[in-house]
């Protein structure tokens, strides 16, 4: 019963015309505000609201003032184990309706993964079991952050229904993460 009130539901609110709302969830809080700025600056035609959170569930008090969330982005920093765990726990507070094209994962630090590739595998498994897209971002350079923000904006506009002939679900069906088969791992992973 308690869990149910804490759940974030996608269709609880009525959508507003020409508006899209995205929720960025990041435990470390060092990328999401930068992303938010760029997302808002990059879109002129539509009213974009970016909401930031460290983790889910969101506080119950603000439930009524909170707008309808069109896209939830989990930002996972592979350099930290906590980041992965926090995302894993937060996902539980999303209503299943979100997983029809309203959730995606954004991973940073995948390239300097000399220490632990198991974290990447964990996130990959999570994303593929939830049928969500898994994006990678280069958060070290400002160009990389801009590129990531622009990609998120594109997904957001589709998820918010602002792109004719495309829905979040249709986009999700072509972008969701698929666990690489063993073959690929055999082919090109360096022996460790």
């Amino acid at each position, binding site marked *: 019963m308690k869990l149910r009130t804490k759940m974030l539901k996608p269709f609880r609110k009525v959508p507003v015309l020409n508006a899209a709302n995205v929720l960025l969830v990041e435990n470390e809080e060092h990328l999401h505000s930068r992303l938010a700025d760029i997302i808002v600056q990059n879109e002129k035609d539509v009213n974009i609201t970016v909401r930031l959170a460290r983790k889910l569930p969101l506080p119950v008090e603000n439930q009524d003032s909170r707008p309808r969330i069109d896209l939830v982005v989990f930002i996972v920093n592979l350099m930290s184990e906590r980041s992965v765990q926090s995302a894993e726990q937060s996902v539980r507070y999303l209503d299943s309706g979100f997983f029809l094209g309203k959730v995606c994962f954004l991973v940073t630090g995948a390239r*300097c993964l*000399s220490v632990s590739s198991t974290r990447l595998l964990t996130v990959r498994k999570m994303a593929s079991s939830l049928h969500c897209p898994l994006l990678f971002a280069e958060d070290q350079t400002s160009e990389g952050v801009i*590129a990531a923000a622009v990609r998120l904006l*594109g997904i957001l506009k589709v998820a918010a229904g602002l792109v004719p002939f495309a829905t979040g679900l249709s986009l999700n069906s072509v972008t*969701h993460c698929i666990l690489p088969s063993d073959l*690929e791992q055999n082919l090109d992973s360096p022996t460790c």
Partner: protein
Amino acid sequence: MTEASILPGLAGAADCSNENDSSCSDISNKSLRIAENAKKKRQAEAPLLLALKYFSQVKTGTPRNGNDELYGYLEQVEREALAQGLAPEAVSIMLEFAMSLRMTSAISSRVLRFLIPASVVPQEAVVRGFSWLCMQKLSQPTQVLFLRWVLSMFDMIDSKDNLRAIYGFIFSFVIDETMCPFICHLLYLLTLKEHVKPFRVRKLLDIQGRMGKQPFLMQLLALYKVFCPEMVTLTMPSKMKAGFKNHNSTWKVALAALRKRNISKETHSMELTLGVRQHPHRRKRKFHHLLVPALTPMMESSRSNSRKGVCLQQLSSFAELLDNLNSIELPAQMGSLLSSALALHYLDCVQDESAFLRLNFWLGHALHEEFLFGPVDGSSESMGEAAHFLSMLVSTQHFLQEGFSSTEGFLYKFLTMWDGFLHRPQILELLSDIPLVPSSYIKDVLFEPLMQLYFTSSVFFKCSVIECLTSMLRKWLTWHSVCAQEEGLDISLNNRSTMSLSLSGFLDSVLKLVQFVGRLTSVGLQLERGHTLLLHHALGFYETVSDMFLKYSLPLFVMLPPGVFFPALLATDPVSIDRLGYIMFRYRQNLTSAKEQQKKQRELSLHINRSVYKEFNTYLVAMVAHLWNSKSFSPRTGIEVSEALLERTKVADYSKSFDLIHHPAFLNYAIDFHQQCWPERTDVDLNSIKVGKYWEWYVEFLFTQGFDGLRDFIKVNINQASARQSIGQPLSQPTQPSQPTAVSSPSS
């Protein structure tokens, strides 16, 4: 200034004064300011010299506990090493001190950990290190640490011929299980043909029997096999794992920092002495794997005179290369081949397997360790460096007209974690170079990661992906058509036993690629609302696909998907329709010539699916009905919309709205034509163009506007007789349409 900054504490501990003075005087000739700097530097180095002197003279068994002098000096050297790097003499002294185990092994390993050379490592020091290793006094972790140090600093060892001379000694350590991976790596770097001996091969096989098929053993054996195939009968797996790990983790950060500092110093010194622009960063390149090393010969010392080999860097012209083609010595560092045009010519014509093996190893290592999992500092400098390296790799592969297998492996790995932006031009260029991917795993390694990137990225990224895949398809097809000529692989050949197998494999992969791009373009155009640029890239791809039979002699016919055809047909720019006309024209030419060939050799039917003809005819009917017969939206034209719905649009003559006159893409041409025909008329009645001769003139007028594709399409597909007949009468009479001369499927 340059000298002084690169080689701090140039001279060793004991006999420093002479050399240092002479180097100083050289410098002071250049500029007074530089000399002063050097002097300041020398003063700062005095304690270091004392410390080095201490380490060169300290006796075995000197007490360690409470020895403040020792720790003071140790810290002194450590600070200097991490800040500036150590001069070659200092490296010798410290290595000697560490390896001789005059203190405890804890001290030895501490010394090894901070042993960062400023410029080069004298090879004699390394040789002495090995002689100490032979004493078997060192503890196992220290032994491994020493080997890791040698491997990490390998590029900086000034020459390797003496190391090669003690190959046998080094080989003897291979039986030690903990040291074996490191020894194998070192041997891999040192091995020459003369080192491959039957007893060594036996030993390695023996160890392999004990330890299992370890990748490091396999790599070394693979190299042995390249040099002496008769000695190693082992069969190697075609796709081998990268065998050696990178061992430089301990020193990586320090080396990178050192290199950065040196570069900044060097650029600073460049400002002082303009004119020295010949080899600006050559020297520093050794510090980083992503930089291509300079061309240095394998045999550095006087011994090279006794060998008849010629080093690549001695050659300066193509003619010289041709003269010495059979006696070329490969350089010590295979990566240096990338930067030399002559070396690439050599690689290209000699097809030396060992050279490719070594180059691939070097490249795979560089890409994996330095780029893929490299230091992510995001500085513009390191980004520029990586971009430069990748661009050079691109131009090398273009020169050789083939991709390296190590690049391929790297790309598959990188695609799964790419953000779609980092080094995009180079990555896509490299991607288009990858050789044919077997259809069994093309989906996993290529399509899935690309698709996830494609659909989540901007329209411009989508365009560049399609462009990349077009170029990939062209390269595969070209490769096939060249192979077909070389090996007599011909679809009309009778002996199809082995060839048809490979041909069918090839067809499978190409078919998968074409279908994949069909999916990307259809859904992409839908997402981007028929973006013109994306449409043109899609049409560019199908220009290649439509011509596969005639241009590349590949018996494969795949029609473009409706998701591309109809957006192009109903596009608002005339160029899309023109290109579509050209594509349909090429499809027709290919299909008819295939049918003729089929008739000629009935028993060797090259099989064309009947559905291809059917699809082609549907498109043809749709195109003619829309553009020529003014019968848009009527049944059997591909787009069927119920009449009730069309009425509600309140467009008066909806069936005419996509003919050559009213089509939004051609409307301005029609108005232009109208004005030229009837300059005095003020009210524009476009329907009058359809009457009589004007229609013929109008079509001719369009052709003069450069719509060659459309002209080819109309000339081939519209039956001239019936066309003329229909031109004779107003085209509004739908009972007399000019029929498209459809290609019929062979059996019908």
